[in-house]
């Protein structure tokens, strides 16, 4: 069975600074997808970034980038130039690339951005 672990329940960062959120996972699969989702107080989950395991290049989306270490089963999210609107819960998620569309989420990291 696949598991996703987020070991940082809470993180804080000052506006304009950089912060990294950690995520590790366990799987015996070779091909899969990894995601970071943001959940603001409105409860609506929003996709931040996506990584295919077969791609060696780390995904980037504007201020958001990942450090994907397949051998170490690590998938961290880096937020550069943090903004007050980045304050939210962040969830790391795993999905097999075949036979299922089931997303497996971690327990989340609460990020607070201070002015």
């Amino acid at each position: 069975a696949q598991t996703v672990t987020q070991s940082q329940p809470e993180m804080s960062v000052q506006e304009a600074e950089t912060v990294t959120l950690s995520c590790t996972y366990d799987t015996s699969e070779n091909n899969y997808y990894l995601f970071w989702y943001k959940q603001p107080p409105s409860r609506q989950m929003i996709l931040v970034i996506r990584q295919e395991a077969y791609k060696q290049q780390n995904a980037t989306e504007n201020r958001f980038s990942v450090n994907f270490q397949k051998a170490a089963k690590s998938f961290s999210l880096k937020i550069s130039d943090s903004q007050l609107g980045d304050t939210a819960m962040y969830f790391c998620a795993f999905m097999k690339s075949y036979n299922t569309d089931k997303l497996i989420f971690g327990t989340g990291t609460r990020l607070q951005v201070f002015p």
Partner: protein
Amino acid sequence: GAGVSQTPSNKVTEKGKYVELRCDPISGHTALYWYRQSLGQGPEFLIYFQGTGAADDSGLPNDRFFAVRPEGSVSTLKIQRTERGDSAVYLCASSLERTSDTGELFFGEGSRLTVL
């Protein structure tokens, strides 16, 4: 509407009662998912529809939980004989095709269920 709509936003019920939660996905999205998010936890998969049929219902915790999507659009999650442990936020999401093809689920704001 432009996004995934869930009703009710909040529902308080008594133990043993029957509850229905509704999800109206984005128009044209063929895939629909239900997740349950307990306090302090990440969302847990319940069931996935492709069109009208349940492609994967392996996450439903027991036979008190049932979901339908009769016309391939709106879906209803039904919970019989509610228990206090059913208290959670129930999230619905939809996608244009399989998540593995597009990589993105569009989530609603969830229905918070409280069982007293």
